[in-house]
C-alpha cells in the first residue's frame, strides 16, 4: 500500500529479566510480540492499552531509541534499522516525539526559546537568524507568547511546558509525530487545550500522529483508527467508531466497560472485570485467564490478528461470533 507512511512488519522486542541477583533464572518479557501495523499518511492512529502492554516500547522502537529482537520498520522504502548515520538523522528529522512528563524532558537550565531552537542547530537548518525566526514562529504557533521566550521551564505551568515540548517536536517540520501520553499528567481543563492544539497543528502542518494513551476517552476524541494492545500484542485494530460501537475483542469490551462514565445515571457496569494483566501464558491466547468467552482452543492456539469485518481486525478465535 502506497498510502502507508510507516510499515511495521513482524516486530518483536524481548527483554531478558533476571530473577534477583542470586538466581541464575532468567525470564523473558515479550514487550512487543509480532506486531504488524501500518501508519497511514495523514491519519491519527491511537494506541491504547494498560500499563505494561508494550505501547511505549513500540514508540521507542519506531523512533529507533531501541533495537528490536527481530522484525522491520519500513519508512519510505527502507528498513529504519538498516539505516546508516546520515539517513538515520534524516529519519529522526521526520519522526519526532512528544513525551508525557514535560518537566523531566526539558532542560531546567535552558530557556524556552533556546530549547525550541536546539533541534534546528543539531540538524543544521538555516543560519542563526533563520533559526531564531523559525523558533519564535513555532513558539507562537503552539500558543506561547513572545515575552516568554527567555523564561526557564520552572516558570511555566504544566500545560505551557507541554506546549514547549510540542514546539520542539514541531520545529523540524516532521511528517510523523509520536505522542506518548502527552496529556496524562495534565488537569482536565488543560488537557482539553492541548488536545485542541494538537488537532489544529495536524491540519496546519499536515502531520500524521501516533497517539499513545491509556485514557480511552482521549483516544476516542483524537484518533481516526485505534489499535488496542494487550501484553505486547495488538488484539484489535479498527476505525474509531467501530471500536466504540461494536468492539470485537473481549478485552476491548472489558476496557470500555471499565471506563467510568461521566453520567451518574449510567452506573451499572455490563461486564464484570476479572483479574489483572499478569505474565503471559506459555501457550494459547494471552487474555485467556481473564476472558469470559474462553474455549478449549484458546488454551492451546494463540489467535492471530485477522480481518473480521471490513477494516476491522481482531485477534480472537471467537471474533464476530460473540
Amino acid at each position, binding site marked *: 500500500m502506497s498510502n502507508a507512511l510507516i510499515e511495521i512488519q513482524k516486530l518483536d522486542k524481548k527483554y531478558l529479566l533476571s530473577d534477583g541477583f542470586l538466581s541464575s533464572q532468567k525470564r523473558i518479557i515479550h514487550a512487543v510480540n509480532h506486531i504488524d501495523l501500518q501508519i497511514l499518511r495523514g491519519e491519527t492512529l491511537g494506541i491504547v492499552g494498560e500499563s505494561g502492554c508494550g505501547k511505549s516500547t513500540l514508540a521507542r522502537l519506531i523512533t529507533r531509541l531501541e533495537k528490536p529482537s527481530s522484525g522491520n520498520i519500513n519508512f519510505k522504502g527502507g528498513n529504519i534499522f538498516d539505516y546508516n548515520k546520515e539517513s538515520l538523522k534524516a529519519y529522526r528529522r521526520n519522526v519526532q516525539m512528544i513525551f508525557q512528563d514535560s518537566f523531566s524532558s526539558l532542560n531546567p537550565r535552558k530557556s524556552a526559546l533556546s530549547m525550541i531552537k536546539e533541534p534546528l542547530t543539531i540538524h543544521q537548518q538555516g543560519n542563526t537568524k533563520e533559526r531564531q525566526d523559525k523558533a519564535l514562529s513555532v513558539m507562537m504557533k503552539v500558543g506561547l507568547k513572545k515575552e516568554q521566550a527567555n523564561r526557564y521551564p520552572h516558570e511555566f*505551568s504544566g500545560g505551557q511546558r507541554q506546549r514547549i515540548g510540542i514546539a520542539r517536536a514541531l520545529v523540524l517540520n516532521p511528517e510523523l509525530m509520536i505522542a506518548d501520553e502527552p496529556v496524562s499528567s495534565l*488537569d*482536565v481543563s488543560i*488537557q*482539553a487545550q492541548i*488536545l485542541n492544539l494538537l488537532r489544529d497543528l495536524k491540519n496546519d502542518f499536515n502531520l500524521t500522529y501516533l497517539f499513545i494513551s*491509556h485514557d480511552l*476517552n482521549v483516544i476516542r*476524541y483524537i484518533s481516526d483508527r485505534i489499535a488496542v494492545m494487550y501484553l505486547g500484542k495488538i488484539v484489535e485494530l479498527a476505525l474509531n467508531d467501530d471500536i466504540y460501537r461494536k468492539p470485537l475483542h473481549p478485552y476491548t469490551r472489558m476496557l470500555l466497560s471499565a471506563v*467510568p462514565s461521566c453520567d451518574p445515571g449510567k452506573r451499572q457496569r455490563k461486564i464484570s472485570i476479572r483479574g489483572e494483566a499478569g505474565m503471559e501464558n506459555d501457550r494459547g491466547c494471552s487474555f485467556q485467564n481473564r476472558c469470559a468467552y474462553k474455549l478449549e482452543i484458546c488454551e492451546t492456539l494463540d489467535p492471530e490478528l485477522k480481518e473480521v469485518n471490513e477494516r476491522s481486525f481482531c485477534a480472537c478465535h471467537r471474533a464476530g461470533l460473540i
Partner: protein
Amino acid sequence: MPCVYLWNSCAIASVKKTEYMPPLLQIKDLMTVFDSAHGTIKAVDGVSLKIDSGETLGVVGESGCGKTMLSLSIMRLVPPNGKIINGEILFSGRDLLKMSEEEMRACRGSEISMIFQEPMTSLNPVFRIGEQIAETIRLHQNLPAKQAMELSVDLLREVGIADPQKRARDYPHNLSGGMRQRVMIAMAMSCHPKLLLADEPTTALDVTIQAQILDLISDLKQKNNMAVIFITHDLGVIAQAAEKVAVMYAGKIVESSTVGAVFKNPLHPYTQGLLDSIPARCIEARGREDYLRTIPGSVPGLSDLGTGCRFHDRCSFAFTECVQREPELVEVEKDHFVSCWKCSAAKNH
C-alpha cells in the same frame, strides 16, 4: 459566616422531619495556611461541608486547589510548615481540632482512616504486608499478636486477595499496584472506621484495576455503613462512586450538591467548564469533529489571589461585582450551593 448559618438551617430542617441526628462529620469554616517564600498561602480557605454515615462525598478539583490539604487537615496531618488557623471539624459531635495529640492518634486509623494515591510509598518496604496490617490492629485494639495476624489474613481475604494466607507473607514489592492498593484498603478497614478518606485512590492504577478498586470500596462501604470522602481530579470517578459532590477551586468550595444535580445542571461557570472539557461529554453532545470547550488560562497561584471571585479572570460571565467582591456559597436551588454572583443574581430576580 453565612455558610455556617446555611448548614445550621439545614440541620434545623432535618429536626422537623425526623429526630435530630448530627452529621458524622461537619466541617465549619476551615482555614489551613502555609508559610512560603511568597508569604502566607491559604490552601484551604473557609471550607464548610458535612457528611452523614454511609454517604459518599466526592471532592473534585484540579491540582493545587487544596483538596489534598483539606483531607490532611481532617486527619490533622498537615505538614510542619502548614497550620490550621480557623474553623471546627466536628466528628460525631467532637471537635477534632480541640483534641490532644494522643486522642487524635487513637482516632486516626480506628475511627477515621485514609488511603493514598501511591500505595508503595505508604507501605513499609521491609515488613511483610500481613505484619503491617496486624500492627494497626494491635495498636488500636490491643489484641495479642497471633490473633491480630489471623485478623489481617481475614482482612486480606475480604478485600479480594486470593490465597491470603500466603500473600500475608509477601513484601510490598511482590505485589502489583492494584494489590498494594487492596492491602492499603485492608489496613484502613482493619478497625472498622466510620469514615474513610480516599485521596486519589485509583489515579495511579489502570482503568480495569480502577474499576475493581471502586467496586471494592463501594462494597465495603455498604457492608460497614461507612462514610467515604473521595478526593480526586477525575470527574468520571465521582460520577460513578459518589452521592454528593463538592467542587473546589483555589482553596474554596465553589459548588456542592448531589452528583445528579451537579452533572446534569452545573451552575458555577467553573464546574460547567470542567465538565465541558471532558472528551466523552463533548463526543456525546457534539460529535468528534468539534473542538473541546476549554477554560482559558490556568489555575491561579494561591499566593497571588486578587480581589473578587477567584475565577473571574477565566470566567466568560464575569461582571463588575465579580471583580470587586468575593461571592459566598449560597443555596441557589434546593440542596444546591453555589458561590457565584451570576447565580445569586439569577436567583434574586
